[in-house]
């Protein structure tokens, strides 16, 4: 009976064509293959965000008078409310973390070479969207930290010449951070950003399917010699075990370190001591702290790093179009060195911002874990096909 139902469905949906296509999909095997799992990991955390985000919407109330109380209610009264919110917060952080890891690995493997320029650009766009999710979601609990982070973040937009003032008012929904800002951020966080992200994500995933995995120039020979891994079931099962492991880590983090709620936003209270944004903004935050007050040619000093970071963001988006050499020769040492310099800057500034070496340790631990995962997931060593 199942066979008959299957046939009926297949006649109408053409599933066997898809299955046939999927069965041919392979993943190149070489010593850097482990990096192919990072994008899938980011996708997993994104799916967790969608799922937990929908659940949070059942209790959350987006208004200045009720937002904090509704999250407090969720955390203290609603059964497992604390768990859902903590998973949402932890998963958000891990999603940013893995998106960044994915970006770093793709950058250094030069996977953005022709014909994958648009895959890269859509990926960078997705990272910016993720950061937009992080920034807008941050305000929603309406606590002190959220209030000041939003004040500073939106004021930064106001620094941009010519369009700054409009951007600031557009973001805040008025001149000041208020309940109106909360409504706007909520709208972006649950409707506008998810809609845009879905489209860009589908494009990104489709391009990965169409163009296949990029093999880094340094591993081309090795990849030719070794048998590629079938996506179904070998790669997909490895992906899946990673996801299950990630889910376990997520549950443990949420249970052991439930996300704090802090104090309700007070529009008339000084910023508290050691106030700091999320870790992924700390390098910019620390840079801003170091720039002294002053003005040059009508431009305040603080605008300089802000505009510079903006320009670097645009540069990141355009890397494949600027680094033509990588597509031509498979190598571009200058761009690799620039990437290393940027990484050192970000890690060093983050360490400085926290006045701790923890960020550096996390870099080391991540490297070791990636090597371990590379070892576990390695394909068979047989030569030739």
């Amino acid at each position, binding site marked *: 009976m199942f066979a008959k139902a299957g046939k009926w469905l297949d006649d109408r949906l053409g599933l066997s064509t898809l299955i046939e296509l999927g069965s041919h999909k392979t993943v190149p095997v070489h010593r850097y293959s482990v990096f192919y799992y990072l994008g899938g990991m980011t996708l997993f955390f994104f799916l967790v965000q969608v799922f937990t985000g929908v659940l949070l919407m059942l209790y959350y109330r987006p208004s200045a008078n009720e937002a904090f109380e509704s999250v407090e209610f969720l955390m203290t009264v609603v059964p497992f409310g604390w768990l859902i919110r903590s998973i949402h917060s932890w998963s958000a952080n891990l999603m940013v973390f893995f998106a960044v890891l994915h970006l770093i690995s793709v950058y250094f493997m030069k996977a953005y070479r022709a014909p994958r320029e648009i895959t890269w650009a859509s990926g960078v766009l997705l990272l910016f969207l993720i950061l937009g999710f992080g920034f807008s979601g941050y305000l929603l609990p309406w606590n002190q930290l959220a209030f*000041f982070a939003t*004040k*500073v973040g*939106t*004021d*930064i937009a106001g620094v941009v010449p010519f369009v700054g003032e*409009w951007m600031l*008012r*557009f973001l*805040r*929904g*008025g*001149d*000041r951070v208020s309940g*109106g800002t909360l409504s706007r951020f909520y709208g972006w966080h649950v409707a506008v950003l998810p809609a845009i992200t879905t489209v860009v994500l589908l494009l990104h995933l489709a391009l990965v399917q169409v163009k296949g995995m990029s093999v880094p120039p340094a591993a081309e020979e090795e990849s030719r010699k070794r048998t590629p891994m079938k996506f179904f079931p070998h790669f997909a099962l490895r992906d899946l075990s990673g996801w299950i492991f990630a889910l376990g880590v997520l549950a443990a983090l949420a249970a052991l370190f439930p996300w704090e709620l802090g104090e309700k936003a007070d*529009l*008339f*209270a*000084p*910023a*508290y*001591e*050691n*106030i700091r944004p999320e870790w992924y903004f700390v390098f910019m*935050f620390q840079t*801003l*702290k*170091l*720039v*002294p*007050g*002053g*003005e040059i040619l009508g431009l*305040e*000093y*603080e605008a300089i790093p802000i505009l510079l970071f903006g320009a670097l963001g645009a540069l990141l988006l355009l890397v494949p179009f600027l680094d033509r050499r990588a597509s031509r020769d498979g190598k571009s040492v200058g761009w690799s060195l620039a990437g290393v310099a940027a990484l050192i800057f970000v890690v060093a500034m983050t360490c400085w911002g926290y006045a701790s070496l923890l960020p550096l340790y996390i870099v080391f631990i991540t490297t070791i874990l990636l090597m371990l995962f590379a070892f576990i997931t390695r394909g068979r060593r047989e030569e030739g096909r």
Partner: protein
Amino acid sequence: MDANSPQPRRTFINWFLGSTLGAAAATFIYPIFRYVSPPRIPEATTNQVDAGDVNDPVLKDKGFKIVRFGAEPVILLKASDTDYRAFSATCTHLDCIVGYQPDRTRIYCNCHGGCYDLNGRNVSGPPPKPLTAFKVNLVTKGSEPAKIVVSRA
């Protein structure tokens, strides 16, 4: 080109349809653009506020408090027993709210470490401009000062 050839006619139609579509898009985009730009709501100008009692426990305890001056936060600090000062509490750097540190006799912003002296001048850290000063008046009750009134300088 021959006037009877279909090409100019096609070009004309393409141009005509294209500009119609462009105009239609503009009529959609303009209202949306205006809609997402928040309207400017004039705030009632506040010129003077009652900043509370001289013996306010917060003021006594911390040496300062943040006063609501309309929608604007203003910091009222007690430099000495008889010396009260008030400044805009909005850090001129990136819009955080400053506090007073009596032990270090400075106004300090916890966000990015901006420092102001007790005259509101930006002395170190990122702030580009001084804090706007406000006037403090003490209303006496009998011979003792009782109430603090903050007004625009």
